[in-house]
């Protein structure tokens, strides 16, 4: 072959470009372009419990109950419920006319299968399953739940915002093993998932479901009429904050779920944009110590750290100089919610290094290395990790700072091995404030030793007080129990709360109806 032959051969080669499915959108259709907090990498809200999956899940699947802005569960798919005098038997009746996206009616058997799958994965669901006598369909619209002991938080469990939520799927899908991902996305909610336009890491598309029957009440968070006022919602995944900011300013997207605080002044200067707090329930920053190994198996050393740390330092590292975005948190529960407590929290985050050093000395710290695992790819964990490393060094700890990514942290924190054999002494994270309003969906505050969250705190008074809360029949009893939980968790230093902080959301002024809440609620949002 010579160059002429090569030329002839190469001329025949064409570029076969595979196509991304992107059907033309009907002219005049209202499309809301939304930048979510993260990539929708999977779409099974029971199998995967990431917030972004939950948020998308609420568009596609409906709930039996939904909490409103007052944190009270309200009927959603349920028309009525009856509870027996001994509070052991609940009988629920579904609203008429509920349909799945494939046109099939929503029946009791679908609900039973969905709740069964949910209970296998949800901490509250597991508690219910442990006391469940029977869950069965009575007829197409009625199902009955019989318990071995009363569970006053049942309706809250069915309507809570924490993942995994008790979303209702068709029976054939809900029968999938809870530890295996579903492959069909037939929903019961106000929007359908356009699977053939889903490009994980780039975009996800939802279309208004014409046969969805919203409730008559005004919408309030997960409760009330979920009226979709646009034809189509496109989630545009943007891993880079500066790009999302530019796209919003340029009108290429309409709504950005979580602009970083550094960019907010820039967005505020743009006359076409609104910027406001995203979720009034905010977030709770935290670092956890491993209670299994020295030095943090010693409660006095944990208390020394709790006293020496300054929440202000942590909060400024996370949100910058905007004082309206953070507040000190003398405990473990979300400020501004009914069960918030500061009982026993006087010493939390005082920032008294000298006292901390004194307590550390008294506690008999022997210079053991502190393996401090810090995910560098998450701005919140990185900021907290830097502050902690400095704090520990000032206190006199021997710090082994492990800079890694969130994926590795997620694995390493689950290891109960000694810190010098692949385990850890400390890692950083944060919790959505919506998860910290009570102990129901808040595993981080549990202190049941081996069964507790990472760090495996074993503080029996905390567990006893949480049990009191679960059994509490009225708000006063609940509050009394939570005061005990907070005081005991501070005393035993279940974990170290680094403060309460808020985040922003931003949207273009031609978009209206956006509310503050723990989930970016799309119902009620319209676009001019």
């Amino acid at each position: 072959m010579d160059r002429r032959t090569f030329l002839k051969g190469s001329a025949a080669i064409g570029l076969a470009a595979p196509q991304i499915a992107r059907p033309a959108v009907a002219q005049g259709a209202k499309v809301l372009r939304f930048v979510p907090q993260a990539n929708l990498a999977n779409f099974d809200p029971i199998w995967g419990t990431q917030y972004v999956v939950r948020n998308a899940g609420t568009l596609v699947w409906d709930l039996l109950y939904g909490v409103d802005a007052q944190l009270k569960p309200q009927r959603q798919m349920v028309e009525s419920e009856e509870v027996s005098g001994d509070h052991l038997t609940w009988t629920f009746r579904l609203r008429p006319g509920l349909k799945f996206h494939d046109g099939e009616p929503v029946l009791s058997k679908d609900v039973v299968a969905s709740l069964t799958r949910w209970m296998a994965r949800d901490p509250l669901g597991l508690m219910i399953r442990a006391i469940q006598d029977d869950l069965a369909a009575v007829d197409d619209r009625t199902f009955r739940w019989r318990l071995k002991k009363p569970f006053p938080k049942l309706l809250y469990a069915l309507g809570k915002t924490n993942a995994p939520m008790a979303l209702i799927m068709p029976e054939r899908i809900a029968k999938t093993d809870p530890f295996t991902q579903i492959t069909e996305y037939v929903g019961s909610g106000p929007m359908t998932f356009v699977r053939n336009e889903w490009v994980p890491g780039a975009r996800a598309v939802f279309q208004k479901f014409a046969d969805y029957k919203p409730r008559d009440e005004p919408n309030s968070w997960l409760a009330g009429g979920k009226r979709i006022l646009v034809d189509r919602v496109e989630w545009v995944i943007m891993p880079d904050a500066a790009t999302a900011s530019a796209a919003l300013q340029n009108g290429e997207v309409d709504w950005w779920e979580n602009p970083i605080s550094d960019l907010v002044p820039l967005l505020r200067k743009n006359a076409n944009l609104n910027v406001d707090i995203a979720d009034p329930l905010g977030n709770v920053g935290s670092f956890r110590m491993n209670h299994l190994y020295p030095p943090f198996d010693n409660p006095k050393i944990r208390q020394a750290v709790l006293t020496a740390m300054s929440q202000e330092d942590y909060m400024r590292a996370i949100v910058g100089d905007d004082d309206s975005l953070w507040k000190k948190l003398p405990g473990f529960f979300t400020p501004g919610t009914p069960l918030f407590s500061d009982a026993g929290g006087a010493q939390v985050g005082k920032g008294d290094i000298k006292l901390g050093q004194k307590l550390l000395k008294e506690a008999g710290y022997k210079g053991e290395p502190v393996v401090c695992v810090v995910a560098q790819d998450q701005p919140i964990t990185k900021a907290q990790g830097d502050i902690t490393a400095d704090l520990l060094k000032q206190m006199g700890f021997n710090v082994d700072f492990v800079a890694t990514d969130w994926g590795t942290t997620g694995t390493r924190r689950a290891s109960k091995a000694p810190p010098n054999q692949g385990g850890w002494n400390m890692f950083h994270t944060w919790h959505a404030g919506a998860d910290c309003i009570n102990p129901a969906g808040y595993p981080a505050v549990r202190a049941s030793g081996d069964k507790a969250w990472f760090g495996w705190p074993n503080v029996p008074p905390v567990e006893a007080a949480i049990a009191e809360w679960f059994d509490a029949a009225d708000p006063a009893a609940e509050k009394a129990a939570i005061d005990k939980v907070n005081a005991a968790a501070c005393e035993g230093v279940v974990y170290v709360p680094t403060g309460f902080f808020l985040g922003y959301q931003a949207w273009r002024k031609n978009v209206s109806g956006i509310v503050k809440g723990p989930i970016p609620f799309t119902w009620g949002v319209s676009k001019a």
Partner: protein
Amino acid sequence: MLGYIGRRILATIPVMAVVGLFVFSLLYFAPGDPAAIIAGDQATPDDVARIRASLGLDRPFLVRFGEWSWQILHGDLGTSIFTNLPVTTMIGQRVQPTVSLMLVTLVLAIVVAVPLGVVAAWKAGSLIDRLVMGLAVLGFSVPVFVVGYVLAYVFALELGWLPVQGYTPIEQGLWPWFSNLILPAVTLGLVYIALIARVTRATMLDVLSQDYVRTARAKGLGQGPVLFIHALKNAAVPIVTVIGIGIALLIGGAVVTETVFAIPGLGRLTVDAILRRDYPVIQGVVLLFSFVYVLVNLAIDLFYTLLDPRIRY
């Protein structure tokens, strides 16, 4: 030559096998657990273990490697742990944006860099030469993401001429497709332009001192034909080699460029997969990149026959 091509293609098989084993081993021994990421914060260790088992991640190295190799031999790159989509589908969704970006970048770089290098060599030592070389140094020195942000700010936000982000498939119109690629291609192409311009200048300087160039000038040929027909053609082999090597640069640079301009390409797919420990996707993309690189090298070798008739395989 057909025999040569056949041998080269056959030689890709052991290369791909070694790459496959290397990548699989690296991921197997690297820290991180997709099951823990999937299970989320609420999960118990038992939950994580059950998810790991359902994904087959608890099986021994040899079993998993054997199964994966068997799939590859059947043309199946596996299924994403997270999305439950076939890896081939996910790659298929991302190929067009990346190929488009690389092609536009390549064309832009060659069209700009080669004439710049030729002119710099022709005017060696002059102000033009220093200017071109200064720009080349700048192109090497400024990080891709800085260039990207500056271009987006000026041409999208301030002037409103071009979109900030995204990708429009070519089927939806040539201009929408091209307008989404201009800023990313300039951003990604800057380093490439600098590289090609420098190599072109150096090679041309060598060629321009050859006797046949003096002869061409003595025959009365103008500067254009001397530079672009006689000299450039003889300087082309090293330039083409650098262009080929530079495709690896483009693949690496595409990761950053696709992130800055939110282009749903293979670069972003790779980074997302690495951060999530989505092993089948990482393995599939790395194998694809290796295969493309081997093919590009083969194409470059064959292209030499166009430039220099003395070369035969």
